[in-house]
């Protein structure tokens, strides 16, 4: 095994009080902020660009460049909004990070705000994780009390307020402009771009929207230097990231590693497949919106370029692993149900398209319909991809087109038999216990 794990953000999650400020300070906490406050904001932006840090929320856009897009200060407010609306199916890295070590995020918010000239930052957390909200509220309270937030932070003259805001259940609010509308007290629907948030974001003011893990990575980068960060990862996908393994693996969980690690290596670390006699069938490299991979793709380096070259996307590094007991049509049907449910209704291709996709997939899973339905699915996908208002519509097509590409025969098998060929019980976590009991 060539690649080793690099616990950085996950380093002290096993501390009994990992979420407190005291624990964080024992692990270099807020030393990055102290260093930052002695630097020029533009040097901080440059350092982030030099580090090569790319957005950890899925799209992989260079974080420092995003900061650099803000127009020059005009005397009015500028905002940092942290996207903590983690809800892409399979993605489960930001929630445990904020549960176990929320101060990483708070310090990152303080440094980033200083770098971009923001005096009021927001963390938009999805509303369905109330204990994480408690931890964030507490972390902000502790940071205020210690003088890391508030007026004249550490005597620097820099002021920063942080508001932690809870959403109310809507996948679309993870789309950055929908998130801004939601934060403004509206229905969470995406905005036309341009103008991009950097120009007209929250309250039509210049705004940076960054993912939790991106911002949490800033303090260690600042403390140890851009070089330290670029030493990890690949040439174009630098640094580390949290890889989330779930599904039919022996030890699902969070594995923090340099970008470019392979699933084969990760699976090895995670103890292999749950049942060694059951082969890996398909997996998502970065959530349900990224085209499926199969066991052919085990050795693809999980970095932005290699995954894209193989026809998918690194996304959020949400590695959902399914073994051969799983019906791919059922999996895709359920994801499609999700996109239909979560479509915000703003644009026609997504609103109508996801509904029709669900109708067709629903009947295919039950062995009804005919082979032409596969072409119809692909045709509907073609009418959504690139024609919907935001990336949610595009994402809805990924599992469908990729599953037809790799598993057309399995769709046909459903039609041949007139029902799903799989026993749904076999793929469950508790199947074995029940059989032996």
């Amino acid at each position, binding site marked *: 095994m060539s690649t080793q794990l690099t*616990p950085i953000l996950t380093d002290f999650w096993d501390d009994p009080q990992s979420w407190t400020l005291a624990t964080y300070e024992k692990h270099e906490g807020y030393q990055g902020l102290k260093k930052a406050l002695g630097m020029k904001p533009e040097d901080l932006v440059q350092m982030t660009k030099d580090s090569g840090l790319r957005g950890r929320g899925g799209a992989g856009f260079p974080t420092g460049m995003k900061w650099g897009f803000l127009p020059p200060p005009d005397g009015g407010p500028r905002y940092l909004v942290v996207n903590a609306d983690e809800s892409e199916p399979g993605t489960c890295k930001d929630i445990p990070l904020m549960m176990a070590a929320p101060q990483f995020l708070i310090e990152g918010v303080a440094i980033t705000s200083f770098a971009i000239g923001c005096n009021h930052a927001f963390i938009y957390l999805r509303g369905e994780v109330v*204990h994480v909200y408690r931890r964030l509220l507490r972390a902000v309270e502790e940071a205020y009390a210690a003088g890391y937030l508030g007026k004249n932070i550490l005597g620097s003259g820099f002021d920063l307020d942080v508001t932690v805001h809870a959403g*109310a259940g809507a996948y679309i609010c993870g789309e950055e402009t929908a998130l801004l509308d939601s934060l403004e007290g509206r229905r969470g629907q995406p905005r036309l*771009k341009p103008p991009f948030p950097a120009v007209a974001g929250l309250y*039509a003011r210049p705004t940076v929207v960054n993912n939790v893990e991106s911002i949490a990575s800033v303090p260690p980068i600042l403390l140890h230097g851009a070089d330290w960060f670029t030493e990890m990862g690949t040439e174009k996908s630098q640094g580390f990231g949290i890889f989330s393994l779930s599904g039919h693996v022996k*030890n699902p969980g969070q594995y923090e590693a340099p970008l470019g690690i392979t699933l084969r290596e990760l699976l090895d670390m995670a103890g292999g497949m749950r049942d060694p006699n059951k082969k890996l069938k398909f997996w998502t490299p970065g959530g349900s919106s990224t085209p499926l991979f199969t066991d052919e793709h085990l050795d693809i380096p999980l970095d932005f370029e290699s995954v894209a070259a193989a026809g998918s996307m690194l996304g959020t590094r949400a590695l959902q692993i399914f073994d051969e007991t799983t019906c791919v049509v059922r999996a895709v049907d359920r994801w499609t149900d999700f996109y239909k449910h979560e479509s915000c209704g703003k644009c026609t291709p997504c609103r109508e398209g996801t509904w029709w996709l669900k109708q067709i997939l629903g009947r295919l899973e039950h062995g009804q319909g005919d082979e032409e339905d596969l072409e119809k699915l692909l045709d509907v996908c073609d009418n959504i991809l690139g024609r919907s208002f935001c*990336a949610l519509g595009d994402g809805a097509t990924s599992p469908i087109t990729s599953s037809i590409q790799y598993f057309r025969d399995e769709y046909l098998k459903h039609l041949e038999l007139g029902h799903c060929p799989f026993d749904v019980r076999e793929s469950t976590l*508790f199947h074995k216990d029940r059989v032996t009991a």
Partner: protein
Amino acid sequence: MAGDNFGMQTAAGHLTVAAESKEPYTAEQLAGLDADAAQVIARYPQKRSALLPLLHLVQSVDGYVTGRGIDWCADKLDLSTAEVSGVATFYTQYKRHPNGEYTVGVCTNTLCAIMGGDQIFDEVSEHLGIGHDETTPDGKVTLERIECNAACDYAPVVMANWEFFDNQTPESTKALVDDLRAGKDVKPSRGPNKVCTFKQVSRVLAGFNDGLADEGVGAGPASLAGLEVAHEHGWTAPKAPKADSTKADDESADNKSSDNKSADAKTDAKADAKTEAKATGDAKAPGRHTSGNAAANDPDEKPTAQGTLFDDGAEGKGKEGKA
């Protein structure tokens, strides 16, 4: 609540709303709500941003979004009731009919469903005799199918009032709902020492900390899986070149990525030049600007050849630019 048509739509699309939903708040309730609202509104530069927390606050008093709650939000934020209703009906956590004391949500998104969520939902549904978004006759438990709740490494997952119950089985979830109905204290896998009521949790979601943050674990076993492997092998993150070498770091980094930098600088300059002129867009009354028609709109601005000028709005969505 069960049995009547409350919250149901007629064929014509009219929502059945009970008269009680419109009954005015008592003076005491109103005083409490108004005091809380003042605190919530003070958190935001524009008061409309307080709408989501205020709707959570309404649920903390009424147990769902009532007619009177909508009137009250509209009044507090200078909005029409239609604007408030439009928001309240968009988000799934806002309940349109009285909710049980505990919402039990079984994740039936793909991964959890396959790992057993479907079977859990079916068995619990049969056990309780209720379906999705229905409440037991004793008003204790509302059963829901929920979407991915960001705990896939603990699949199948069940949420009780938005606290995590990890690695569930049909048996464990049936025991959970039985305990909740019997009024027993129930402890989540990762969360406070006991599950709070729907109304209590709604108040936290409005941003009022209940002081329970220090209860429960920092991380569950799956969250620590990678860290344990690293400990076993003695793996750590690389050490920084020198303990304190700000200058050296910066300089070497500067030299190293000068190619990238010049490209960045060009893009920056372009973006800056474009934005400078229009950043001075006319000011709107607080809480009143229409975000879709922001003054800074520039029809000629286009994404770059790389696909995106900025992030393609896909933060958290696992999407690159459009194909």
